[in-house]
């Protein structure tokens, strides 16, 4: 009673939820950065220089590897372009003069300000990279975001004068060191032709198609893969990866989850308490809160469910009219039925191997890992579809 009361209080405390401001893209980027930093650290580099080296490694990588390894050629991929960079980073003190100039790509493959005759060499902040497509080059910041492309007029904070020399600097009358962060682009002078692949993960197939059409890309081969946990007909993988720069009109391949998969977040959760006593026997109190549909009853099975009810079995409509059918399944599985949260305990005559929830959307099962002794609540999977 007391326990339940504390639970209710905590539940009430989170009854109103503030808007979610999590940024999953930033998690993915940050996670990669951490992984890379760790890899470098394990090579024996002193901890203080890890961050610097990690960024350097990132800039040396050709486009694509940082995001994902493409699984095959789709659309056009860029060719790396030499981009002179300085040591300047976001947050460092910088020169604050302003150069407004149109970026162009020279015949030698350098990105410069202005036309060939009176062009100014440009030295970009640390970590910037560039790549070239048919006649257009794009500049990316250290997080691989496209920040400018040739043909655009840009405002570049910084100043003239640099001791640097090298390809794309030598031979120009002047060199401008950029010491400012994006945005650089002044107006809507973006050159059509290069677009960024949007993040499609988790979108429905229709939404992904719309998102691609919206940026001027087409849908390539669509494959269907089964994926536990992914909602039916949603994008689980795509190629090229999000953030890749590709020519407008090129195609993006999609892998979508199979329609028969469990329906997403609703199916992935199991709430309840699983207690394990000393001799590794299970005593559990489970409630399948997140099973979609209304729970009609819970069933406790002494045998693995798959053996008795095949996923290939005919769909069942869970309604009072189908009671006879469930009675038959009950009988086959020798199930006691229960409509409240269930107690699974070792005192039952036979070990409990699975729990079924019969709901308005189908029958869902949870298998208990009796033999592993692990207190891990397993995922819920659908055994039979309703209707």
């Amino acid at each position, binding site marked *: 009673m*007391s326990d339940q009361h504390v639970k209710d209080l905590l539940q009430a*405390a*989170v009854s109103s939820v*503030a808007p979610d401001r*999590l940024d999953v893209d930033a998690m993915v980027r940050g*996670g990669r950065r951490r992984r890379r930093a760790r890899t470098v650290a394990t090579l024996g580099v002193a901890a203080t220089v890890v961050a610097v080296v990690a960024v350097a490694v990132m800039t040396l990588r050709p486009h694509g590897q940082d995001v994902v390894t493409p699984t095959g050629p789709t659309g056009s991929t860029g060719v790396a372009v030499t981009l002179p960079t300085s040591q300047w980073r976001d947050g460092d003190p910088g020169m604050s003069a302003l150069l407004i100039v149109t970026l162009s790509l020279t015949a030698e493959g350098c990105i410069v300000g202005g036309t060939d005759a009176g062009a100014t060499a440009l030295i970009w902040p640390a970590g910037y990279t560039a790549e070239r497509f048919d006649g257009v080059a794009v500049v990316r910041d250290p997080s691989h975001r496209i920040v400018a492309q040739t043909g655009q007029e840009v405002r570049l904070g910084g100043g003239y004068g640099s001791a640097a020399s090298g390809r794309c600097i030598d031979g120009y009358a002047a060199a401008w060191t950029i010491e400012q962060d994006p945005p650089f682009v002044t107006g809507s002078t973006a050159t059509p032709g290069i677009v960024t692949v949007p993040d499609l993960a988790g979108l429905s197939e229709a939404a992904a198609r719309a998102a691609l059409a919206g940026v001027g890309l087409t849908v390539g081969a669509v494959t269907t893969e089964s994926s536990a946990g992914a909602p039916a007909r949603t994008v689980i993988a795509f190629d090229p990866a999000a953030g890749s720069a590709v020519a407008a009109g090129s195609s993006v391949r999609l892998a979508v989850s199979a329609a028969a998969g469990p329906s997403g*977040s609703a199916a992935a959760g199991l709430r309840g308490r699983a207690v394990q006593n000393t001799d590794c026997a299970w005593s559990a109190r489970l409630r399948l809160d997140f099973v979609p549909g209304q729970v009609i009853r819970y069933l406790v099975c002494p045998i693995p469910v798959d053996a008795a009810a095949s996923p290939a079995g005919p769909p069942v409509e869970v309604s009072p009219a189908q009671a006879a059918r469930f009675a038959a399944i009950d009988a086959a599985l020798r199930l006691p039925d229960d409509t409240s949260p269930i107690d699974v305990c070792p005192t039952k005559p036979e070990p409990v191997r699975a729990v079924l929830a019969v709901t308005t959307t189908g029958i869902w099962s949870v298998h208990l890992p009796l033999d592993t002794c692990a207190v891990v*609540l397993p995922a819920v999977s659908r055994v039979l579809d309703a209707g």
Partner: protein
Amino acid sequence: MRQSAEADFRGWVSDQRPRLRRTAFLLCGDWYLADDLVQDACTRMFSVWDRVTGTGSPDAYARRVVVNLYLDHRRRPARREELVEAVPETAEAASAEPLEQSDVVVDALRDLAPGQRAVLVLRYWEDLTVEETAHVLGTSPGNVKAQSSRAIASLRAALTARGLHAVADAMKEPS
């Protein structure tokens, strides 16, 4: 392969974010900080995603990271809220509306020590057993039991102090 790991991770985040955010909020009592904790925890999760999904349950791992980040945050003096002698006038004082009970509970939780709060959230919100809670916090089951009875006593006192006598009394009933 890495792409599907990323898709897996994104799916996992969209499934777990409501639960993780609530857990973090119950721990720290502030949605802004809660989102920071979850953001940080998930970033760490993704950096070891292959290992986490390969060897166990990402949910349990995430819970552990969130709790540890919270306790860590509270331990770091630079970031800890400052204790001042004079309490500045609060928005509630100006508002004529009575406080919701849920707000009072959140406020009462602030009276608890971080460790007690963590025990309370893990045991009664995350529904973990004494042993699982001890495992997450890296302490002994005996300590968890002691902490949770202390936490409940503190919570009861905090609720009584805020005028929720009935709620506090209800917690006293024997189980």
